[in-house]
């Protein structure tokens, strides 16, 4: 049981997120209304993605230093779950934007073309595509050691791309997405009340722990597979 405490606490935090996230007090804002509660789910996907990508790049650097296969596998699968979180963040953001940014009075295609041009969305799409290229690159190299080394180097490059694409550019350009001047998720003055952070921080930790759990399961499966083929 002592090795499972973090999985249990992750699930408890997620249950708390759902209950307190839907019942807790939120500021009454025009347009957003109850959708402000998406903060505990949509924004957490991106925070979780960022943390998982950070773990992935640390594992990639560790691989380049120590040349241990375990670090390579960890790097690959943390990036995989990070990409899953990114996709879920994108999908939930699309749904959220459809009911808050899109103008119901003009044809959908018109407001869609405005939304699709949003720099934050394009930045997120670029960074996700760079990570998809990571998978393509990785799987196109048959030699195990070369694959591990090249994809570890590429992983560092992909991580560096995240900073201009999702941290810097959207803050410089005009965007519909909140957080233009300052923090994209936690602008206490304008966007959310400080009370929401009581749910938001545990939610980030809970979602991240769930992602780590999934990644470790995949790493362990891959290690077992390797053992089976070269005992």
């Amino acid at each position: 049981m002592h090795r499972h405490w973090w999985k249990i606490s992750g699930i408890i935090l997620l249950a708390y997120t759902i209950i307190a996230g839907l019942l807790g007090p939120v500021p009454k804002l025009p347009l957003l209304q109850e959708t402000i509660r998406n903060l505990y789910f949509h924004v957490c996907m991106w925070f979780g993605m960022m943390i998982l990508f950070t773990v992935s790049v640390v594992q990639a650097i560790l691989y380049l230093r120590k040349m241990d296969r375990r670090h390579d596998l960890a790097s690959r699968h943390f990036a995989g779950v990070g990409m899953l979180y990114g996709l879920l963040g994108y999908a939930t953001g699309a749904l959220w934007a459809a009911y808050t940014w899109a103008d119901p009075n003009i044809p959908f295609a018109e407001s869609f073309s405005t939304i699709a041009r949003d720099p934050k969305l394009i930045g997120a799409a670029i960074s996700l595509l760079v990570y998809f290229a990571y998978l393509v690159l990785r799987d196109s190299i048959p030699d195990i050691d070369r694959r591990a080394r090249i994809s570890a180097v590429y992983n560092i490059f992909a991580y560096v791309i995240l900073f201009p694409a999702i941290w810097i550019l959207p803050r410089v350009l005009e965007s519909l997405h909140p957080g233009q001047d300052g923090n994209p998720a936690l602008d206490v003055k304008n966007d959310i009340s400080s009370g929401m952070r009581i749910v938001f921080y545990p939610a980030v930790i809970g979602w991240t722990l769930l992602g780590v759990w999934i990644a470790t399961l995949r790493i362990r499966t891959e290690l077992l597979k390797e053992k089976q083929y070269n005992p």
Partner: protein
Amino acid sequence: MNWLHTSSIQLLQSAAKPAVSMAELMRSDGRIYVVIGVMLTILSGITLYLYRLDKKIGKLEKRS
């Protein structure tokens, strides 16, 4: 007089309706508790799935 009788009964019934409040938690507050129930069910399903997968992989690790 019959119509008066029925309408007074209806009036009584309509007046009595909102007063009856039983175990209505799941129907209160715009039925948000139903959403919480659904989300907790999904979370517990995913947890159960991951837990069983974890145990299975653990068994394979012990064997090899």
